[in-house]
């Protein structure tokens, strides 16, 4: 109904999108070349610059109310490649910039190059891959061409896999290998869908596809294959098997990046594909199937999180569960003649869930890292008394947990409330029931951490290595953002409506 007749033309400020991608990529090349201590310095230098670019992109969108578009090499699609930032891209870009910067500050203590060493393995690899992941995510959020997005997904995989096995233990090697194999399976399916799209429509540009696609067998098969591939990469149930060992085995700062940001990349592309390249797809029963897989993830992931004896695997299974909510967007936002207010609720709910989970999960993994370092283990049975020893960290983990459970006024609450509202408005009460059940289960597994942490220790804790206050503050800031997101969703709605034809017309400007 609102499909633009013309493909997007380049806009002023489009060069910001090039910077958003190329700044971290240039950083990676410099880091690789200069090595050693410079890797960390370059990462710390790119962080404020990249953050500024993300802010500039968001501001440009808010001020103009229109998406930013850039044609690389001044060549328009279909032959050339376009970059495009709509509200959702800008939001994810901001989230990435903030979390990467926060984790960068947090990780300085873990990945400092020891004095007397020119270059040490783990710090060099970590700081280089930190920027690599940032660049890869920027490609995924801004790319408009399905094949460029494929290359972006591969960058993401290649940046993520070595982080999993950074400590070199045999279990983490196995986890990294399994992750890589799952990701390769996903890539192959994604490519198969890509070629079918090209064969049928002669373009891979999402904006052009949106004007050309029509539902037929070939398109349906293409979308099905690409979706299956992306689900394997984002670890949606039942493709989640690789995630818990990989995310639990990585060093804490790496786990925080993997669980909060990396899995969001492929999810973002499922949204692009279903709402961008093939509008009208969500009317199909397939959207219900995606929702059902999401439901499976919520229930399965939560129950397994309840059974974990250790902190990091528990948090990793919680990621499996929280990813499930994101996929409720598909059955809820589709439907012909759906009131725009409902669509708006679903988009906002989905986006707030993606972002608040990212901050909450980054805080939780970083906090778990501090607890693990302080205690020398991360067994949940041994957490008693941590609240007294590390009050700030425990407080931050509890705050992040609040958001995961969906208690007001957190971002998680706002997200789930919006999704429940939409499921009642569309008479799909079963999704509302799922959200409540998932919230209860999340309450259960968060309680398993918080209750012992806040209780008095049976015997005095052994000597504890107190973390630097700076690191605790970073964790607290991440947790606070995830909670505060519950207060500002309507500001987010204005941003999300930019460049989103299904809701743009109802948001007052």
């Amino acid at each position, binding site marked *: 109904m609102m499909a633009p007749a013309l493909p997007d033309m380049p806009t002023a400020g489009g060069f910001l999108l090039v910077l958003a991608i190329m700044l971290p990529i240039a950083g990676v090349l410099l880091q690789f*070349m200069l090595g050693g201590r410079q890797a960390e310095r370059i990462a710390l230098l790119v962080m404020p610059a990249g953050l500024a670019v993300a802010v500039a992109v968001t501001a440009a969108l808010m001020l103009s109310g229109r998406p930013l578009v850039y044609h690389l090499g001044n060549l328009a699609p279909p032959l050339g490649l376009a970059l495009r930032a709509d509200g959702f891209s800008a939001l994810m870009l901001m989230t990435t910039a903030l979390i990467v910067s926060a984790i960068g500050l947090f990780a300085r203590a873990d990945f400092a190059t020891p004095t007397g060493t020119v270059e040490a393995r783990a710090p060099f690899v970590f700081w280089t891959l930190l920027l*690599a992941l940032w660049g890869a995510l920027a490609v995924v959020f801004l790319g408009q061409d399905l*094949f460029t997005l494929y290359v972006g997904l*591969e960058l993401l995989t290649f940046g993520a896999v070595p982080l999993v096995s950074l400590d070199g233990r045999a279990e983490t090697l196995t986890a990294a290998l399994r992750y890589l194999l799952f990701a390769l399976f996903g890539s192959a399916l994604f490519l198969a869908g890509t070629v079918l799209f*090209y064969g049928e429509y002669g373009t891979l540009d999402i904006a052009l596809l949106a004007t050309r696609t029509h539902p037929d067998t070939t398109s349906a098969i293409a979308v099905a294959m690409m979706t299956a591939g992306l689900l394997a990469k984002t670890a949606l149930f039942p493709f989640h098997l690789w995630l818990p060992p990989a995310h639990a085995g990585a060093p804490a700062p790496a786990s925080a990046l993997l669980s909060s940001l990396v899995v969001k990349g492929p999810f973002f592309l499922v949204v692009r594909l279903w709402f961008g390249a093939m509008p009208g797809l969500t009317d199909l029963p397939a959207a219900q199937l995606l929702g059902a897989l999401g439901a499976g993830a919520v229930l399965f992931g939560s129950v397994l999180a309840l059974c974990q004896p250790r902190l990091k695997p528990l948090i990793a299974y919680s990621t499996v569960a929280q990813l499930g909510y994101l996929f409720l967007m598909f059955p809820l936002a589709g439907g012909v003649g759906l009131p725009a207010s409902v669509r708006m609720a679903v988009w906002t709910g989905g986006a707030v869930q993606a972002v608040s989970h990212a901050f909450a999960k980054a805080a939780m993994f970083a906090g778990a890292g501090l607890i693990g370092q302080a205690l020398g283990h991360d067994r949940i049975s041994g957490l008693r008394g941590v609240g007294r020893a590390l009050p700030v960290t425990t407080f931050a983990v509890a705050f992040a947990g609040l958001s995961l459970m969906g208690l007001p006024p957190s971002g998680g609450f706002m997200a789930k409330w919006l999704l429940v509202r939409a499921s009642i408005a569309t008479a799909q009460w079963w999704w509302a029931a799922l959200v409540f059940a998932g919230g209860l289960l999340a309450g259960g597994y968060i309680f398993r951490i918080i209750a012992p942490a806040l209780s008095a220790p049976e015997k005095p804790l052994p000597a504890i290595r107190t973390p630097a206050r700076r690191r605790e503050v970073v964790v607290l800031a991440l947790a606070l953002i995830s909670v505060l997101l519950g207060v500002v969703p309507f500001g987010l709605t204005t941003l999300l409506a930019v460049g989103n034809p299904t809701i743009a017309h109802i948001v007052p400007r």
Partner: protein
Amino acid sequence: MTMGLLLDFFLVILALAAGWWTIGAKDSFGAAVAFVAYGLVLALIWVRIAAPDVALTEAAIGAGLTGGMLIGASTRLESAKQATRAGGVTRRLAIALSALVAAALALAVLGLPHPPPSLAAAAMAALPPTGLGNPVTGVLLAYRAVDTLLEKVVLILALLGTWSLAPDRLWGGRPGRKERRNAASPLTLLGQVLPPIGIVIGLHILWVGANEPGGAFQGGTILAAMWMLAVMAGLVDVPAISRTWLRLLVVAGPGLFLIVGLAGFVVAGGFLAYPPGFAKPLILLVEVVLTLSVAAILLLLLAGPPEREPPR
């Protein structure tokens, strides 16, 4: 049925047989050898469907590098404990899934529209300003330059990931074991005679790539192979990964590409745009440096993580 189609049928049967053997072979060595055969048959098929650039790449990368690497891995892992075959249920599920995907893909291919969409005309029309004669090179270095740039970063990340598997104390050292030089070995002779010829051929492939099949990646692969040969003959050693020149060589290609791209902002009004009249020399310059970087990266990927103490 024409002779051509008969030949195509024959190639398809060969490819299917090699594929079947890759999956079904008893030992992984046999499977890896079958995979190389599969890659070579595919290269012939690429020639049959008028894609000589892809045929060269398939032969060099698909059959050559990938195949060689997998054969090497299969001999190294020979003594690994054999996994029990998957259970009956898993196998039946896998058969159902793969049959479903194959059938869907076949159905989708059969359902592709007539007349087919194509960017061939657009690609040719946009070629003159680049000064290139090979449209595939045009796509790789001009129209979709950002894909090629990011692909090189993917290679660097794979290299970094490979290095990251080294033990901490060996970080910065040389990959692999030192090959002993044996003057009596015929390999030494090959390692001395072939590289000069191979370097000429690699540079030739790079050079003609502007107008004919070939290009940076294919040329770089040949250079890497020559380097590897000299390493295997013990004539040169793989450099230590901490060497500054080596790091510079690895990032030079994508780095120069990025600088040229950014310069486009100033001189050509856009990222990765080439100023009129300077497109071809710039593209060739980028390609030459990319070739050298590709050669270094491929050699280092083949050599694996550092296994010897770093230089003090």
